């Protein structure tokens, strides 16, 4: 298997990516697909803002508008934000803990392909009779009343991609528990690894309720069950509970890795270790823990009664405490540091006021009686965009710039990066700040139009203008990516020069086996410690150089996911009398999935070894070769 550093044709590269189990390549797959869906979701957002640009606009019809908002929310949460964060987790976390790969490389690939086919399936709804139109929350009574197959695309698509996410979560947890390099104790793990760990635990416990809810929806709509059919004894509030038991932790699944990325950035570009590392770790764990106890604050107006509302209001307020701890520790990290205003750093700096603004409106909405006014108004729209865009999207943009050299070996242009930053940042505040006031002026969310007599014209126009700025920022980023790729100026191990953690001690991009020798970790910010002690290699080693065991690539994950994709069409048309073939398709699809599962189970797959000699030779060539497997 001596296949290091071969020149490969285009077809071979494609095949390589289809079969890869390498966490770094899977990260690239996640980044590209997540980035694609981010653009789709952004396009949908622009349509929404054009429609609401002025009173009584007729750019989109009422039905199409509802499809647009539903797909915008669903796409951004499930198909853009989460996968892009999974891309960074995949690319960076194993490097940070000194591992050669994740615990289950095969499952890593399966997780990606499930997400991918789920996302494609969901978006095919646009071309196959209409997208889902009951909002991303898909409340049951409206969802059951929705005509066409949109809701079925939603339930089945999210079920598939949800399985993928669950698999990714388990994989990261096991990786962090079992595969840390010697000396990498839990309290020496970089913050991004910690947040990956907690977010993965949240995925593990939050996605099953969603899957159960989606199954109920599928059974109700397609197989005649009555979970949510009120006349048959069903109850639609069950959906709301299941959805939000998932939905609230989901917010933390998104924001915790974002916190992790910013924690890395603050430390790197202040040249200072994180202030209150221990407090930051415990705050992360606390936020994850509380995340499961506050779901009913999304349901203050449902009529659960004053006791439930009061309890959940207080529980929600408590979350502000660990979040505040984080903010202050970050501030104290840059305090007394030496701040370099690179693109990732300006995003991190801009994140603090933006996120604090989103946080304080969150506390305002925890006040249940006040929430009766704010709930389902534009105030909540403003709030969650401040948290998601001001927190998660800024982190994604920052992470893209920060980790681009580690993932691709080139640096994105700082100049264009600044252009993106300013247009996006100004556009973001212009779009969403004013929406707080729209909500206070009585504008409900999810309205496809508004009358000129409601007094909301000016603010909506401003908001739409802001969206345009954000779009320009994203376009500049795309140009930046193209220019950078074409120029292809390669960079070294530590392109930001102040890297602190293990990923900056190895080549960019790293060789496919990551570490020729497993590193020995001697403290928090291990690369920084070695640098300060003048260690030119940047690492001390826990083992002599020797054979390295690597997993084989496989096409089975793709086939398995494709089987689910096929089966979903069968389920979709199951009750459609004009499509008698539906049952056959369902069976064939499940057959493909379970068949490939059986093949995987029965066929031994022991991986292969890279010999010591190959490793040494590779090191001579600079070490960042791109192996076939």
């Amino acid at each position, binding site marked *: 298997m001596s296949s290091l550093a071969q020149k490969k044709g285009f077809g071979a590269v494609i095949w390589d990516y289809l079969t890869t189990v390498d966490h770094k390549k899977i990260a690239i797959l996640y980044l590209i697909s997540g980035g694609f869906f981010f653009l789709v979701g952004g396009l949908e957002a622009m349509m929404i803002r054009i429609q609401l640009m002025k009173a009584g606009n007729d750019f989109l019809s009422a039905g199409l508008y509802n499809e647009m908002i539903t797909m915008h929310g669903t796409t951004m949460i499930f198909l853009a934000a989460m996968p892009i964060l999974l891309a960074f987790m995949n690319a960076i976390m194993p490097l940070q803990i000194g591992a050669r790969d994740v615990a289950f490389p095969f499952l890593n690939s399966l997780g990606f392909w499930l997400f991918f086919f789920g996302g494609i399936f969901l978006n095919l709804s646009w071309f196959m009779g209409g997208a889902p139109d009951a909002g991303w929350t898909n409340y049951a009574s409206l969802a059951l009343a929705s005509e066409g197959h949109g809701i079925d695309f939603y339930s089945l698509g999210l079920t598939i991609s949800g399985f993928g996410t669950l698999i990714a979560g388990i994989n990261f947890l096991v990786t962090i528990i079992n595969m840390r390099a010697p000396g990498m104790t839990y309290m020496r793990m970089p913050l991004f690894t910690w947040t990956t760990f907690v977010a993965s635990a949240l995925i593990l416990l939050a996605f099953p309720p969603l899957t159960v809810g989606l199954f109920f929806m599928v059974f109700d709509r397609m197989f005649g069950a009555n979970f949510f059919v009120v006349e048959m004894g069903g109850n639609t509030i069950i959906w709301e509970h299941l959805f939000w038991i998932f939905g609230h932790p989901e917010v933390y699944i998104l924001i915790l890795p974002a916190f992790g990325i910013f924690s890395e950035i603050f430390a790197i570009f202040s040249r200072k270790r994180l202030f209150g590392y221990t407090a930051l770790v415990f705050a992360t764990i606390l936020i994850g823990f509380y995340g499961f106890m506050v779901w009913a604050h999304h349901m203050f*107006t449902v009529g659960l009664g004053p006791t439930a509302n009061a309890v959940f209001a207080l529980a929600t*307020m408590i979350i502000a405490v660990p979040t505040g701890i984080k903010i202050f*520790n970050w501030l104290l990290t840059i305090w007394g540091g030496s701040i370099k*205003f690179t693109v990732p750093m300006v995003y991190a700096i801009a994140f603090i006021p933006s996120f604090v603004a989103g946080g304080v409106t969150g506390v305002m909405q925890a006040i249940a009686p006040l929430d009766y006014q704010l709930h389902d108004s534009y105030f909540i729209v403003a709030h969650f965009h401040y948290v998601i865009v001001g927190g998660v999207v800024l982190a994604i943009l920052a992470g893209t710039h920060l980790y681009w050299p580690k993932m691709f070996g080139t640096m994105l242009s700082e100049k264009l990066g600044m252009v993106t930053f300013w247009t996006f940042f100004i556009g973001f505040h212009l779009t969403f700040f004013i929406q707080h006031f729209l909500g206070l*002026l009585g504008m409900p969310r999810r309205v496809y*139009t508004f009358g000129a007599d409601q007094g909301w014209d000016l603010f909506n126009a401003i908001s739409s203008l802001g969206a345009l700025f954000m779009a320009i920022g994203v376009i500049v980023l795309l140009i930046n990516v193209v220019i950078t790729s074409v120029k292809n100026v390669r960079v070294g191990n530590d392109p930001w020069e102040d890297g602190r953690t293990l990923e900056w001690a190895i080549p960019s991009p790293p060789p496919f086996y990551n570490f020729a020798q497993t590193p020995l970790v001697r403290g928090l910010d291990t690369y920084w410690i070695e640098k300060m002690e003048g260690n030119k290699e940047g690492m001390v080693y826990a083992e002599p150089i020797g054979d390295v065991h690597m997993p084989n690539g496989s096409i089975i994950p793709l086939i398995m996911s494709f089987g689910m994709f096929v089966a979903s069409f069968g389920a979709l048309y199951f009750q459609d009398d004009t499509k008698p073939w539906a049952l056959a398709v369902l069976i064939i699809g499940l057959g493909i999935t379970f068949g490939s599962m059986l093949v995987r189970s029965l066929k031994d797959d022991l991986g292969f070894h890279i010999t010591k000699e190959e490793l040494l030779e590779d090191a001579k060539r600079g070490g960042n070769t791109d192996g076939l497997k």
Partner: protein
Amino acid sequence: MMKGLTNWRLFALLTALLVFLSGCGREEISTLIPAGKVAQDQFNLLILSTIVMTFVIIVVSVIFVLAIVKFRRSKLGDDMIPEQVEGSAKLEFIWTAVPIVLLLILAVPTVYSTFDLADVTAMDSTDEEGNQENLTVNVTAYLYWWEFEYPEQGIVTAQELVVPTDERVYFNLISADIKHSFWIPSVGGKLDVNPENVNKFYLEFDQESSELEDGVFYGKCAELCGPSHALMDFKVKSVDREEFDQWVASMQEEPEPAADALAQEGEETFANSCIGCHAVSGAGPAGMPGPNLTTFGDRNRVAGFMEHNEENLKNWIQDPQEYKPGNLMPDGQTNNGGEPFSEQELDALAAYLMSLSVEE
């Protein structure tokens, strides 16, 4: 970076100016101009929390701005390696304790108000003669309109809620089809209208709606319920108790037949094509497929959101889907037995409907 900061300040200033210029919105619908006890309580909570949160923002901003001004590498030089501080238990304690205190300040009124606003125990209280002491309105939400039944008074109306001022009005909310949410922003927060259970709450109306520019408060559906969710509006007329009693009395009377010839013709057409779904008597019954039209002539809007004139009314009757997509009212052709209504019939219907009034 300096240029960035100026941008930011300019932008903030501009935003503040805009907010100031457009004031607090329209008093018919703005939560910032509360017109009743419930909205006032919620507004007070808004102010209190805004003050507390502004304090938080100021503290963070001061540290933040000082940090990014003082500790720039361009000032400190490229070779400077800062001291690697681990943390400070004292500081951690402070920024754990202070937020907890701030939250306690918010928690007390939150809990009090949560129970206060949910207190509907007085709903069923009766005086010595067994009459209900407080007004109760049963609200039923339909795709995309609202029915208001006054069970004690035995009357039903739709789309325009009429309530007395300066007393508690209790509401029972239920949906006839899918989930909606009942919201009168300037009078109080929303409560969901579920298909499976009755939700109860109360509101108080402290201002007579005749003082408003448009003469009514605006009510909204706040839960996505389909294509015309945005158009599921209703209006609220608040009048003093005396006027309310008069209104109830005239609602309870038998409706008078139409007076002029055109309206009479319209009444006939109505009896042939519309009466199956729409009641025109204040007595109801409740639960008809379409809104009760007894007070149609007194209303502020056609179909809840269009300007109240005959033109809009005629357009609506002929082609409701065009104006409120997804609503359940059949078009003119279906109602008229296969033929679209003629211009004459429409004029007659409009004249008849506009003549339906219980106000003097």
